[in-house]
């Protein structure tokens, strides 16, 4: 025990107090950490107010979490009509159900599931969120909060994936036209900021649509964001394509596989394994980038803070709102980051050698 304390003191001396300057810096930093820590704990917990009907309950030097609790519905579902809110969890649960086939072992071609989702998801969203026969219409302008962030993220990622893969393959094509178009697409959309694409899709595109052919802003935004994301994805996948040894392409060629089957059966499975972590990384960036839609007047999880804090009952509650939104974003992104890490580990370890069923006679 004594030895432990002694070695701890030695460690401190060596690492933190080895020169006078370091000693001063150490003391200063410890003081700062404690000071800020105490202040934050006081603000967030000790002096915080958890219940109340308006900002009048606020205490000096304390957070008013009552604001978050009171407005939680708006953070989650935006301005979706209260009595229709049940439709949102139904939508999300149905979308999750479409993920089940991915885990069924008997299904060989998981890409078909993704293609099916590309059709089914918008139908689910259109019917349950927008409304249709038997369900009241809800304008997509009223979608907001975490729901909007979710819809934008998952649909954007879903559509960007196949497009990104096609563009990456196209960029390596031997046909000059396809190669040229792919390069133009990737370089053009990587070269302009997402905000520009969002403004284009929300303001400029409607001018060019023929009269009467109105496309919902939500659809335009999702298309714009998918295009943007697919260009980045294409570059990540291209990097993976380049790291596949030439011998793999040659062996596939020699067996007689042509470009399409070769890519699908031999090259892409290896590429996706290699690029899991990068794809996870740009997906996280993409989810964070969805916050930019607040600039074109959509109220996603971040964008909704400001209108909520303009409520005359809750004026000046931006700090609480922003911190709450930040925490939610962090949880989402951290979860995806961990998931990516797990998937990466799983695909890179050899799959368990299949049950040895013996050598048939």
């Amino acid at each position, binding site marked *: 025990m004594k030895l432990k304390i002694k070695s701890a003191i030695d460690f401190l001396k060596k690492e933190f107090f080895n020169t006078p300057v370091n000693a001063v810096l150490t003391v200063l930093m410890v003081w700062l950490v404690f000071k800020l820590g105490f202040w934050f704990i006081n603000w967030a917990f000790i002096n915080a107010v958890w219940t109340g009907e308006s900002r009048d309950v606020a205490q000096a030097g304390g957070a008013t979490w009552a604001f978050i609790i009171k407005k939680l519905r708006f953070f989650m579902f935006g301005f979706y009509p209260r009595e229709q809110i049940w439709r949102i969890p139904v939508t999300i649960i149905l979308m999750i159900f479409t993920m089940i086939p991915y885990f069924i072992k008997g299904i060989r071609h998981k890409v078909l599931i993704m293609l099916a989702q590309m059709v089914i998801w918008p139908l689910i969203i259109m019917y349950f969120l927008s409304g249709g026969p038997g369900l009241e219409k809800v304008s997509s302008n009223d979608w907001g909060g975490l729901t909007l962030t979710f819809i934008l993220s998952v649909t954007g990622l879903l559509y960007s994936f196949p497009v990104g893969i096609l563009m990456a393959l196209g960029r390596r094509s031997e046909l000059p036209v396809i190669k040229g178009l792919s390069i133009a697409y990737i370089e053009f959309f990587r070269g302009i900021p997402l905000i520009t694409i969002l403004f284009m899709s929300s303001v400029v595109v409607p001018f060019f649509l023929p009269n009467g052919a109105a496309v919902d802003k939500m659809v335009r935004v999702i298309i714009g964001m998918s295009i943007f994301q697919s260009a980045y994805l294409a570059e990540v996948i291209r990097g993976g394509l380049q790291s596949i040894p030439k011998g793999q392409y040659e*062996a596939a*060629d*020699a*067996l007689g596989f042509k470009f399409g089957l070769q890519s699908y059966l031999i090259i892409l499975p290896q590429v996706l394994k290699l690029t899991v972590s990068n794809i996870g990384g740009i997906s996280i960036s993409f989810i964070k980038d969805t916050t930019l839609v607040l600039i074109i007047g959509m109220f996603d999880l971040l964008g909704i803070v400001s209108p909520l804090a303009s409520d005359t009952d809750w004026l000046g509650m931006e700090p609480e709102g922003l911190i709450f939104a930040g925490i939610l974003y962090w949880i989402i992104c951290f979860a995806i980051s961990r998931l990516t890490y797990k998937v990466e580990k799983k695909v890179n370890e050899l799959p368990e050698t299949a049950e040895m069923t013996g050598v048939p006679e």
Partner: protein
Amino acid sequence: MTDTIEKAIPAETPAASGADEDFIISITDLNKWFGEFHVLTDVNLKVAKGEKIVICGPSGSGKSTLIRCINRLEKHQKGSINVMGHELTENTKDVAAIRKEVGMVFQSFNLFPHLTILQNLTLAPIWLRKISQKEADKLAWKYLKRVNIAEHAYKFPSQLSGGQQQRAAIARSLCMQPEIMLFDEPTSALDPEMVNEVLDVMVTLAEEGMTMLCVTHEMGFARRVADHVIFMDEGKIVERQVPEKFFTEPENERTREFLKQIHAIS
């Protein structure tokens, strides 16, 4: 000048290919450049069905490039390659027809690392020959047993030794039931103690009557199996001989030099 050479090559008339019917591969005046580098110069090679040919020569002599031209892993710029009546052209149909008949084994095995050995073998038959999973499995087991790695069928390539991987690669090619097998230095990347297990498989294959073109420096293999040994240097076929003569009294000075260097002269 180039025009005259091109005109000198007989046009791809049916008559021309008909005349070569005895030969399963006929290469006429083949020329290939890598940029400025003239890697193959006026190569002529005819291979009869069932013939086994070993190609040797110093590195950079174009021997690998020559056999890679046969299944279009490399494009040739001049001359003609005719495999089983299919003229090798830009046309992807011809390329596909030829690749169907020609199996290839590489120096670096090139098994697909994300698939088990069994899946490596059945992938092409299922997708390209369109046979059922069951039939493909049956076919695969047959060849796995023949190359003696049936007990590794459910493993992944990275779990196998080099020699085992190369035997699996040979089996993978055989599963497409090719008429011709090309071997591009199949034992060069192997540890010495694994060379023989691969050569044994190749000998068996030869004994079964497969047409084989093999780039290798394994002169023992050449003596035992080859009908003809070809010596290449600087992109040209310098000498083509039956093995007995090739190893004892080669005609060409360069061949003698080369054999001396690899201590194969007897």
